[in-house]
C-alpha cells in the first residue's frame, strides 16, 4: 500500500472504523457472556445450600 497516494486518508479511515466497530462489538459480546456466566454461578452457589436443605427433609 502506498501511504503517499492521493485519497489514502479515506482508505485508512475505512479500515480504522471497521476495526473499531468490530473489535468493540467482540469485546462487548465477550464481556456480556462473562458477566452472565458469573451471575449464573453466583446464583447457583446461593441456591445450592437451600436445595441441600430441601433434600434433607
Amino acid at each position, binding site marked *: 500500500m502506498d501511504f503517499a497516494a492521493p*485519497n489514502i486518508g479515506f482508505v485508512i479511515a475505512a479500515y480504522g472504523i471497521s476495526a473499531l466497530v468490530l473489535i468493540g462489538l467482540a469485546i462487548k459480546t465477550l464481556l456480556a457472556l462473562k458477566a*452472565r456466566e458469573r*451471575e449464573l454461578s453466583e446464583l447457583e452457589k446461593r441456591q445450592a445450600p437451600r436445595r441441600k436443605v430441601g433434600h434433607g427433609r
Partner: protein
Amino acid sequence: MQRFANPNRFAKSAQRILPAIIGAMLILFAAGLYLALVQAPQDYQQGETVRIMFVHVPAAWMALLVYSLMAAAHGAAIVFRHPLADVAAKAAAPIGACFTFLALATGSLWGKPMWGAWWVWDARLTSMFVLFLLYLGYLAIWQASENGRGQKIARIVAIVGFINVPIVKFSVDWWNSLHQPASVFRRGGPTIDPLLLSPLIVMALAYLALFLALWLMTMKTEILKRRIHQMQIAAAEA
C-alpha cells in the same frame, strides 16, 4: 436441528466449536488483510481507494445474509416451533446492525473520493439505509418489550422486512444508480480481476467466521440470561 432444541446441549456444543471458529477467523483475517493491503494491486482508475472494497463489500454481504438468517429463524420459530429459533434471530440482530452501519460508513468513505459526495439518495444506498433502520427498529422492539408480545412483533418486522433484501440486491439492476452493478454474484461469473477477487473472498470468509463466533457467544449469553431469569423467579416463589 431439533438435536439442538435443548438450550443446555446447544450451549455445550457452541462451547466446543467456538475455539475452532475463532482460530479460523484469526487466520482468515491475517491472510485477508495481508492480501488486501500488501498483495492486491492498485486499481488503474481508483488507485489505492479500491482497497476500501475489501472491508465495504464483506460488510454489505454480511448485512444482507444476517437479515436473511433472522427472517429464516423467525420463520422456523413459527413453522417448527424450534425453541432456539427466536433466540438465534435476536442474537444475530446487533451483529447485523453493525455490519450494515459499516457498509454505509465505508461506502460513504469510498463515495467521497470516487463520486465527489459522501451520500446520494441512490436506490442502493437508500435501500441499504432502510435495512439499517429495520435492524434498529427490530432491536428497539426487543429492547422495549421482553415478553411474548415483543417476540411476536419482532417476528413480523423481521419477516415483512425481508422484502427489502432482494430490493437491496437488485436495486442496481432495477434503477439507474451511481453504485456499480454486481461484479461477483452475477450470471456469467465474476467480472472482477482475480488479484482483487481473492482478497475479497478471504475477507468475506473472515467476516463470516467473525459473525459465527459472535452469534454463538450472543446466543449463549441469551440462554444464560433466560436461565438466570427462571432461577430468580423460582427463588422468589420458594
